[in-house]
């Protein structure tokens, strides 16, 4: 159980703090872009790009943070929608959407694993990963079309791992009554991680990280992001997990580093997919960002990694009723 004070959505000071900090960052960045626009220092197309990104964030942040503040069911529903949106983009980019049977099994798997989270049924939740992988491996055999079997099955299993089983961990966290500060921390920390990598890379410069995969990322950016994100997550984590076995400097720093490294790994994972396909963005849904996956790539690996770290030390929803729907 994550410690949580009695009261509504804003009972935990960390929840209030993260929301206020987010609003402050949004306001300050808006003012900064306004100043940049008026001073005439930036090129018009760069200003337009900045405004688009900023406006996208203004729409996106309430959609991300709102469900978490409202409660458990909206959080899990929001994660389900995110999973389906991510799968859709991946399927259209890789061509997997042409495999109707596999696509259907993946969609059903995503719905099932999020239902298991909603039901607070951990056994089914973890069973769905191997079960869906088996279903994906066999479901196209009856088509009697062995050509391309390995490719389509591999694409499908990777899709379910990333967008189904992986992302669903974020929704499952909401089964713990004290989930709000942790989920909000993860959502904002991965965004901060991206910004820190970009800023440190620009300020320090130096050697490229993986030039063939992602030409704009630098070693200094990656290191800077690890330092910034680890510090922030460890400090905020200390406030969230006070009094639990996780409230130990070593483990808090490990959790912070995990968020940063898994976040950057998710980013590079998507870059590898895009490079392999020869495309720039996964979609066009979010002006200034690209697709949903271009924005949420960092969360894909962070969710399961942090879930199991916190699960090992603290556990999720251990004292609240389980199997609330299936009984």
């Amino acid at each position, binding site marked *: 159980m994550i410690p949580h004070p009695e009261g509504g959505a804003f009972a935990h000071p960390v929840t209030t703090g993260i929301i206020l900090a987010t609003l402050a960052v949004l306001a300050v960045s808006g003012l900064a872009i306004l100043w940049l626009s008026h001073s005439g220092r930036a090129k018009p197309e760069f200003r337009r790009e900045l405004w688009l990104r900023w406006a996208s964030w203004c729409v996106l942040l309430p959609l991300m943070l709102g469900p978490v503040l409202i409660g458990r069911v909206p959080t899990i529903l929001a994660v389900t929608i995110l999973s389906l949106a991510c799968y859709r983009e991946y399927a259209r*980019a890789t*061509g997997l*959407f042409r495999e109707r049977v596999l696509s259907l099994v993946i969609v059903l798997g995503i719905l099932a694993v999020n239902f298991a989270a909603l039901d607070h049924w951990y056994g089914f939740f973890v069973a769905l990963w191997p079960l869906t992988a088996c279903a994906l491996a066999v479901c196209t055999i009856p088509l009697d079309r062995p050509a391309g079997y390995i*490719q389509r099955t591999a694409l499908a299993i990777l899709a379910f791992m990333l967008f189904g089983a992986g992302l669903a961990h974020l929704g499952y966290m909401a089964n713990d009554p004290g989930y709000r500060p942790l989920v909000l921390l993860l959502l904002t920390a991965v965004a901060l991680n991206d910004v820190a990598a970009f800023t440190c890379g620009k300020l320090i410069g130096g050697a490229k990280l993986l030039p063939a995969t992602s030409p704009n990322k630098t070693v200094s950016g990656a290191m800077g992001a690890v330092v910034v994100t680890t510090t922030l997550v460890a400090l905020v984590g200390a406030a969230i997990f006070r009094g639990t076995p996780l409230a130990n400097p070593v483990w808090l720093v490990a959790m912070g580093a995990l968020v940063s490294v898994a976040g950057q790994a998710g980013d590079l994972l998507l870059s590898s997919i895009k490079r392999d396909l020869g*495309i720039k*963005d996964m979609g066009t849904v979010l002006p200034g960002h690209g697709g949903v996956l271009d924005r949420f790539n960092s969360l894909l690996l962070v969710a399961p990694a942090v879930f199991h770290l916190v699960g090992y030390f603290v556990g999720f929803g251990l004292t609240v009723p389980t199997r609330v729907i299936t009984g």
Partner: protein
Amino acid sequence: MDWNLRPARDLGLTPADRLRSLGREPGLVGLAVNTAWRRAVRAYLRTAHRFRIEGHDNLPRSGPFVMIANHASHLDALALSAALRGPAARRAHALAAGDLFFANSARAALSAYAINALPVWRGRSRRGDLDTMRARLAEDSLAYILFPEGTRSRTGEMAPFQPGLGMLVAGTDIPVVPCWLEGAREAWPAQSRLPRPGRPLTLTIGPPLQFPETRNDRTGWEAVSSRAEAAVRGLAPSRQGGAQTAGGGQKPPKPV
């Protein structure tokens, strides 16, 4: 290891552009909406118009092929797609007038998702658009539903065929399936806003034509059009003047 990864043809388009794109490839949602719509239309045609199909064996089971028919009513494309089954039905695209069926976003969404229509822009169809359609027909094993007259007949008389059909199939083995739809003008006239239930509707499907030796140029396209037109006329009941082109579609004609 090199895998054959083929992104969607409409990748990177905004949702509005995607609806009107000739490269639009439906996903699970599009497939579900289109299947539900086709089944509902089939049930409606059967109950309200006693819809009958003759010559069903002439339809290829899967694409690529082009279904052509006389055009007198909005029911035509619905009736032709209702006749399709299996993989051909799932890959069938009606080529519809862009200025009418894709005029605004709501109509475009209905045309794209329910009817699975692809827009054809009358009078300003670019050569590139036709090349895209020709390439997709073969590569994606599609079935096109096409009315070569270009517009609905107001009188019931079939107008001469336009050469666009030839641009899609000249010089290929892709079958062109001639059809005659009888009763559509009475069931839903061009002047009427809604169909009139109770009027019977009959679809006659003729043997497919192929044009492997036809040249892919203007003379070839016109040859395709005239042979296809004769085949469609040949399926018409005798009062439509089937006698003038007797046998046009009754036996498989030799390639031009």
